[in-house]
């Protein structure tokens, strides 16, 4: 079991390397660049920008710098938000994504697996059809419909909604 897990983790390294390499070259192969706008950027300013981000260096140098950076989880400065590091932007949003994913996984494991076993044991009975029906509905209904329906239906009545609005307007202190 331990060797199996270890092997899977080690296999991730070449996979990630392949993805990173592909991403690096695909972006550079595509037409256009990071500093294009409908209003022309003066040539001198563009050259300075390219220099600042190291884009004036030969491709292999850029690639090596990118790889060593990625290995240390350093993705460099953001092109779009020049005063920020990519790492910071990810660090800001990642905990929220992890929390959400964690809860989703927990529900999937605690509810989904037993229901699946139950359906499998009683194959082709009404219990099986009911379980599969719920699963199919969950997959088929778009997330943007299912999500708000669940939230609104399960948690929020009009009173809570009004409170949310009041919070957003700052009429109530909701910190």
């Amino acid at each position, binding site marked *: 079991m331990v060797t199996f897990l270890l092997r899977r983790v080690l296999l991730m390294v070449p996979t990630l390397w392949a993805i990173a390499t592909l991403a690096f070259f695909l972006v550079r192969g595509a037409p256009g660049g990071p500093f294009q706008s409908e209003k022309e950027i003066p040539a001198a300013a563009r050259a300075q920008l390219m220099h600042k981000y190291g884009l004036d260096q030969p491709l292999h140098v850029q690639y090596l710098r990118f790889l060593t950076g990625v290995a240390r989880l350093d993705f460099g400065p953001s092109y779009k938000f020049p005063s920020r590091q990519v790492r910071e932007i990810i660090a800001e949003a990642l905990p929220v994504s992890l929390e959400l994913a964690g809860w989703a996984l927990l529900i999937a494991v605690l509810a989904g697996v037993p229901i699946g076993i139950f359906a499998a044991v009683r194959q082709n009975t009404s219990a099986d059809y009911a379980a599969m029906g719920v699963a199919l509905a969950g997959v088929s209904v778009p997330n943007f419909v299912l*999500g708000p329906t669940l939230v609104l239906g399960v948690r929020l009545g009009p009173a809570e909604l009004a409170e949310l609005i009041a919070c957003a307007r700052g009429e109530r202190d909701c910190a």
Partner: protein
Amino acid sequence: MVSAPGTPRRRIATCLHLLLALGAGCAPAARPAAEVAAGHARYFGDVTPPLDDVLRFNLGAEPEIYDPSLAAGQTDGRVCRILFEGLTHEDARTLEPRPGQAYRWETSPDGLTYTFHLRPGLCWSDGTPLTADDFRWSWLRVLKPENAARYAGLLSPIRNAEAYNHGETADSNAVGIAAPDDSTLVVTLAQPTAYFLYLTQFYTYVPVPRQAIARHGNRWTMPGTIVSNGAFTLRYWRQNNRFEFARNPRYWDAANVRLQGIVGYTIDDLNTSANLYKAGVIDWVPSGYLPSQAIPYLREYRDFRHGNYQGVYFYSINVKRPPFDNVWVRRALNLAIDRDAIANGLLKRSREPWGNMTPSGYPGYEHPPGLRYDPVRARECLAKAGYPGGKGFRKISIQFNTSEDHRRIAEAIQAMWKNVLHIQVELSNQEWGSFMQGLTGLQYDIARRSWLGDYLDPNTFLACWITGDGNNRSGWSNRRYDGLIRQAAREIDPVLRFAILREAEALLLDEGPTIPVYHYSTNELVKPYVHGIYQNPLDVHPLNYVWIDRDWRNHEAEAPHALAAPGAEDAASGGPAAAGGAGRAPSAAAARAH
């Protein structure tokens, strides 16, 4: 000045926004009934004023950078304008320059030297005194080549600024900016620039705090480290969520700033934006953040405002490629376009049909006659070019970047050219990067473009068509045109200058490297209890003197708009005459209007 209005917007909808959107949509019936009962005109959604003096609005897409020296995007500018103030400050209604950090100034008779006198006792939000040298340092920072400021070109009227910016001289003393003492800034221009005082209120010209930049490098704009000199400071910021601004007690006119704070949500989803307004979460949706299909419906409401915006949507013709090197072909294409059908029909009156390359709204500038739809003449022109009835004319293509509206307009124009000129047109939809590469590399037949003005002068629309300008992008070159633009730049007399520019525009329209299609419009929603936000052609909104009127229903009955004019009387006097020592000189009337 902005990346194209058609650039793809990333769609975000946080859980809260979605909830509010749905919540607002749930009970539409209750609201109008209550309002009708109260005998009031119809407003879009909730009109209950907030309990605090805080303006909440949709700032728009997340700003990329709001260091004013380096900023260039539309929403970047919105944040900069809230936080910083230049030598002059735009009047909220007319956008004319009013004394800002400078309380008076003198101009030399030849129009080349401006001497600005800073208000006594100016200071930064951290308490550091703000001196004339701060301006000099900040302007040089914009010009330093290594800073790669996109708007450095706006400083080029200053003597030697361009050379310094291009690295042709490294001597900063050669640049025409001098600070002989702490409160005097002397600016020497390369040539008279009629709109220079409009430039000094633009965010590229505001001072930036060198003490904070020295300490925090390019991270100085974060809340906690940022230091500003405008009416507000930055209190809180969360990416793709919101900016919170607090009143700056050290601002020279803080006594007349009535808002305690401003919250700018960064929402780029147009439906979310409209729904938040309807639910009463935000008080103002600036132009560009309402779904276009909702505009005909929103027109019915009293809190909807529609006006001209200083921008022109046009097609550019690559004159380097045959058959477009023939001026008669270009004229034919121009005359075969029914602008009315596009702006009023296709776009449902949300835009103005426009046949000129400069937009409206320049007092004193008389446009040359615009291009009109004339199918008969269009066919004559095409025949004159050697293609009677479209015979022998190759299939041409229209390039545009991905957007539903660009496609619909291109389809309409394709049909017009087919019906009027009997020529075949194919449409080529491209992703932004490829589109821009084709445009700059002149790899296109006809391409969709737009131009938004930086300052209130026709020059901002005409100067880019001179030979070899980075924004020309059509290959068009005309020596007479180049001469006229240069002549206008040297002309001090405003009437003569406009006459020269008019002649240049007439030439540009006659030569037809461009096909103007429509005039941009502003479409915005402002709650009736918000005062001091005005529609204007630059869509620039100084928020210093905005206030929330909790008693608006009573005022509405008296005079809906007269009330919204703090400082209007001063608007007439303005300028150097408003010298008044420290503090409360020009806009002291902000409080008086009530």
